[in-house]
């Protein structure tokens, strides 16, 4: 039996015998846009996520208020020490992650136009499972991390890292198109946008 790879590539070449020409890709669509805290907050809220716009000084008190008394997964590289929180540190088993009350992270980029936060596994974000299994995800976005549009965000990201784009909490509309939050991912997403 001929090699599947060689055969498929041969079929592709034979299929293109008419030498179709390809017009250039015109990228005249909108590439830049409003990267304001207000737009990002508005768009995140639209997904039924909770959003707080805060000053740098307000971050720790607000986190303490939201998370005190809880067992929270905290990846390496976060600058905040939240009083009253039991910080769980990786390495954790999936069972331990499953039993945590929540997870606190930073992010790599946020997209104002779509209300999306993007995690790339960098400092303060940890591996992908950390933001997947606990039921409550609290994410802190710095204003300099906000990109206006999808094109601007992709430009800032490193495609070789594993990326997770998050737009609101886990949701399904599979039953009579009724939206239900939290099927498998975190049921609650809470975002702090720091001005």
């Amino acid at each position, binding site marked *: 039996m001929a090699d*599947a*790879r060689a055969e*498929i*590539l041969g*079929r*592709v*070449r*034979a*299929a*293109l*015998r008419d030498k*179709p020409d*390809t*017009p250039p*890709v*015109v990228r*005249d*669509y*909108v590439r830049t846009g409003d990267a304001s805290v207000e737009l990002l907050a508005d*768009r995140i809220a639209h*997904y039924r996520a909770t959003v707080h716009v805060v000053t740098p000084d307000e971050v720790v008190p607000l986190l303490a208020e939201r998370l005190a008394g809880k067992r929270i997964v905290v990846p390496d590289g976060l600058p905040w020490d939240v009083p009253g929180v039991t910080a769980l540190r990786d390495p954790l088993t*999936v*069972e331990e992650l*499953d039993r945590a009350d929540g997870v606190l992270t930073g992010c790599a980029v946020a*997209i104002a136009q*779509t*209300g999306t936060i993007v995690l790339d*596994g960098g400092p303060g974000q940890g*591996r*992908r*499972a950390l933001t*997947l299994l606990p039921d409550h995800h609290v994410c802190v976005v710095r204003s300099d991390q906000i990109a206006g549009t*999808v*094109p601007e965000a*992709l430009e800032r990201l490193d*495609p*070789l*890292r*594993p*990326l*997770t*784009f*998050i*737009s*609101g*909490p*886990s*949701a*399904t*509309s*599979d*039953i*009579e*198109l009724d939206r*239900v939050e*939290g*099927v*498998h*991912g*975190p049921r609650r997403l809470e975002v702090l946008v720091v001005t």
Partner: protein
Amino acid sequence: MGTRNPVTWLGSPTFPEAARTALADTQLRRNLRNATTTIRGRRAQAVGELPDWERLRRAGEAIKDDVLHHLDRYLEQLEAAVTARGGVVHWARDAAEANDIVLRLCGDAREVVKVKSMATQEIGLNEALAAAGVHAVETDLAELIVQLGDDRPSHILVPAIHRNRSEIREIFRAAGLGPASDDPRVLAEAARAHLRRKFLSCEVAVSGANFAVADTGSVVVLESEGNGRMCLTLPRKLITVMGLEKVVPTWQDLEVFLQLLPRSSTAERMNPYTSTWTGVTPGDGPEEFHLVLLDNGRTATLADPVGRQALRCIRCSACLNVCPVYERTGGRSYGSVYPGPIGAILTPQLVDDPHDEQAASLPFASSLCGACFEVCPVRIDIPSVLTHLRARAVEAKGRSAESVAMAAAAWVFASASRYEKAQKLGSLARLFAHDGRISWLPGPGAAWTSSRDAPVPAREPFREWWRKNRG
């Protein structure tokens, strides 16, 4: 090889037969109409928000055409990039070969978790795995409903759209998931509890892919529920089955598709989760990553200069939700994993067998009203491809009495003005019904008259009626 292509379901009736049954099912039609009307409205809003939508569509079309016209080069590039990052690439000529590869990769695993994937449905992977003693657990809520109900999916995006909440509760109860009520929240919670155990223990996951980037080797999956993220990150081994045409040239190209797809599909600015990964990342996610590149009729489709544009499809399902034929007949009438307008042009091409009556009937499952083209984010001219495939079907059949009528249909549908004129004159119905037997759905004016509750647009030509009421 030489086995049947499972892209159509074995034993499915031809479209007109199935459509007649579906038309008689008022519950089904009510569920469908509610759903498509809702999604249609939401989509229009999400799309209307972007002033550059047409420019994005044109860019999407151009990028996909570039991919198709240099597919060999991009596939080789993709393979090199994935391999360089620790992934393994496999090539599958057809369904049987792809299934064998996946089965071999499953090793000793008796159970695998799956994230919804059209490609694996197309090759009948679950059935092939089951025959070898491996149970594939569908983890998308709608797919789970379909799987537990021993049912067929009826929509690309919401496969269980034909089921209402009380039916779903019954299905879950019969499967031992025991939901206490038919509240969607309670149903979703039952699925969550059932599946979480699987996610935490399964060693192998199977996924599809929405895109794969040639220059970086990154693979992309868009989803809503988080079951995708579970499958893509928790098991030790990840197997992704992807149609050849899903490759895009560069990382930058994603900026177009990440805008086009969610708004066309779920009518959201962005779907809740998008995951991208490149090969394997030590300490994060699967230790092994396999990418299976699937032909299964795609290169044959590529060989047709008119038909090849069907391979631009990004499976958003927008064309289903605007299609008057789909709205009344439902997805299962198409007898294929690809229903609706895109199914009508993609399925017969992937099957590529003029003796498959069921597939051959699909290009006739349309009114040619053009609504599908208008919403398609990659500008696939579905009506033109339909007309082209109708002509091909007629050629393949020879000049039987039936084929003369088909040819007439092809001729009428070849031109919009001829079509409208024919409808105005009422000649269309005569054209098809004079032998008292309508064996395909050549157009709404003709076919729906065979069903008592067919909403025949009185006097008004269908296209005009559609434009006024839906456009």
